[in-house]
């Protein structure tokens, strides 16, 4: 009789601990969900009338920026000041995608007065 009571108490303790563990885990999953970064987005920068439009773009790290040349003449998109990345020449109607890892200034090396900026928030 005493042994049966002990078994019931033991089972109760195991169930109770199991419940606490489950609640703890699901709460931690919820927290992770809240901390998770938003899904990467694709932003568009149009090159037209000898300008990058928009000239200043706010993005999240990991987002992609798609540059589309809708101008009469060829352009490129080149990091400034070190030229650490470049699209090379984009003819009219061509496009190029950049995955953003950090904020950067850029310009068109063919038309050095054309400038733009990507800011990682």
């Amino acid at each position: 009789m005493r042994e049966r009571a002990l078994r019931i108490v033991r089972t109760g303790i195991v169930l109770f601990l199991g419940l606490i563990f489950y609640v703890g885990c699901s709460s931690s999953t919820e927290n992770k969900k809240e901390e998770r970064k938003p899904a990467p987005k694709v932003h568009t920068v149009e090159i037209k009338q000898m300008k990058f439009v928009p000239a200043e773009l706010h993005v999240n790290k990991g987002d992609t920026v798609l540059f589309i040349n809708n101008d009469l003449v060829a352009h490129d998109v080149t990091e400034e000041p070190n030229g650490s990345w470049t699209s090379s020449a984009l003819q009219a109607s061509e496009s190029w995608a950049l995955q953003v890892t950090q904020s950067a200034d850029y310009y068109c090396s063919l038309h050095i007065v054309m400038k733009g900026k990507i800011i990682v928030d």
Partner: protein
Amino acid sequence: MNAVKTLTKSGVMLVALLTMLLLPALAQENPKLSDPEVAHVAVVANQIDIGYAEIALKKSKNQDILKFAETMTNDHTAVIGQASDLAKKLGVTPMENAVSKQLLADAEKTKKELRSKSRKDFDKAYIDNEVAYHKAVIAAVKNLLIPETENAELKALLEKVLPALETHLEHAEMVQKKI
């Protein structure tokens, strides 16, 4: 130095020339320059700058000048391509006229002067001429050619070319400050 002044003066004279040739047309109710003639002036103006760039690409060793000249060649070639495509689409043959003839004659003189420059003087002469030439062409396109044009698509193309010309001018002025 005198030669540079001469080239700058030739740019100023070009503005005056275009104004003199086209103002009487503007003063009349019916424009004197037809659309095929406007198209020819536009094509010739682009060809002239390609001609200047060809000389620069042969004579200069300056990286800023070489890059600028290469951009002029590519951009003006692209504009001529667009103009030719539009002319074909509209069934229009660009027509030689007094303005385009005079532009070509004037450009021949300027090219002769540029070719005669020593390598030392060439870069400044070339970029000074580019600044003056682009100022003249912008003024002509904005104030004379666009108002003369009747066809909406040709007018739209001329309007689309303006920002490129203005960017070229700004670029040329930046290079000019460094030379």
